[in-house]
């Protein structure tokens, strides 16, 4: 029998605007986590990724993106995607999230077809701790009603 994948852990559709979405009590029983976000913001902003409530300078990454400004590549800390007031679709894959012997890599694909932005990112969370919570927070305004966030486990 095939090994099940994309096993659903939690899902949320916002019924009121919020600046933060947090998945917590994540079981350590999978290999990777997938977070699928389909959302808009009240204003142009940046979405910040936090693991285990860690607000320290433990996040780094590289990105490449295409936008109305052209194609760019660079490094980043703390934010993983731009938020636009039109619809954003972002998919995160946290590799080996429950491992206690390595830093955590997250691969991110961020999309906004309406505004015209596409990006791919690879980030490192400099901690050997197993990830038990994932928080997505905006640094300005709020995430709009109707936005959806779903967490899956992959074996």
């Amino acid at each position, binding site marked *: 029998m095939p090994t099940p994948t994309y096993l*659903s*852990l939690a899902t949320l559709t916002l019924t009121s605007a919020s600046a933060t979405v947090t998945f917590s*009590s994540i*079981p350590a029983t999978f290999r990777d986590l997938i977070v699928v976000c389909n959302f808009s913001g009240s204003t142009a902003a940046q979405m910040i990724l936090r693991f285990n409530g860690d607000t320290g300078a433990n996040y780094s990454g590289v990105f490449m*993106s*295409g936008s109305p400004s052209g194609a760019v590549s660079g490094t980043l800390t703390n934010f993983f995607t731009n938020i636009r007031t039109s619809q954003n679709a972002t998919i995160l894959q946290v590799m080996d999230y429950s491992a206690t012997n390595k830093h955590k890599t997250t691969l991110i694909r961020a999309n906004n077809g309406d505004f015209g932005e596409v990006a791919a990112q690879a980030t490192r969370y400099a901690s050997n701790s197993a990830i038990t919570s994932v928080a997505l927070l905006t640094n300005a305004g709020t995430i709009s009603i109707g936005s959806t966030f779903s967490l899956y486990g992959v074996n």
Partner: protein
Amino acid sequence: MQHIETVVVGSGGAASITFSAIPATFTDLVVVMSLRNSVDTATSTLAFNVSGGTYTTRRLLGSGSAVSSSTSRTDYFAVPSSMTASTFGNTLIYIPNYAGSAAKSYSTDSVTENNATLAQQSIIAGLWSETDAITSIALNAAGGGNWVEHSSASLYGITAGSDGITAVS
């Protein structure tokens, strides 16, 4: 993730691969494709619900020698006939909330294969303006060509829910 359907092109080739009568019972859709065109073009078109609606996109494309950002709807999903024999393009399309009542975002990641400098890698952010549920997905070969034998596409459905342990707020 649940497998819905796989289409494998036979010896006669096919101008299009189409998934139709897609049930609205999942949350997201994933399409995984392996495509080669019978003519010398790598491009293809993706169409939801046969036709209609407006597509707005942003494509980031690397060709082996250059990078570009554009709003072109040209999708480099397939290996053209001029590229190395027996190679096929590989593409994954993710469509969240495909059955919802809002416009539909989609994300594509695609590569072509060639034993030469020229090979395309692209990522695309797309938005289909229609608010209808997606009930069909068509992958059309461009340039008057056909998808060659052994080209394939598979459709999967993903369902969001809860494991009763993980919390979200």
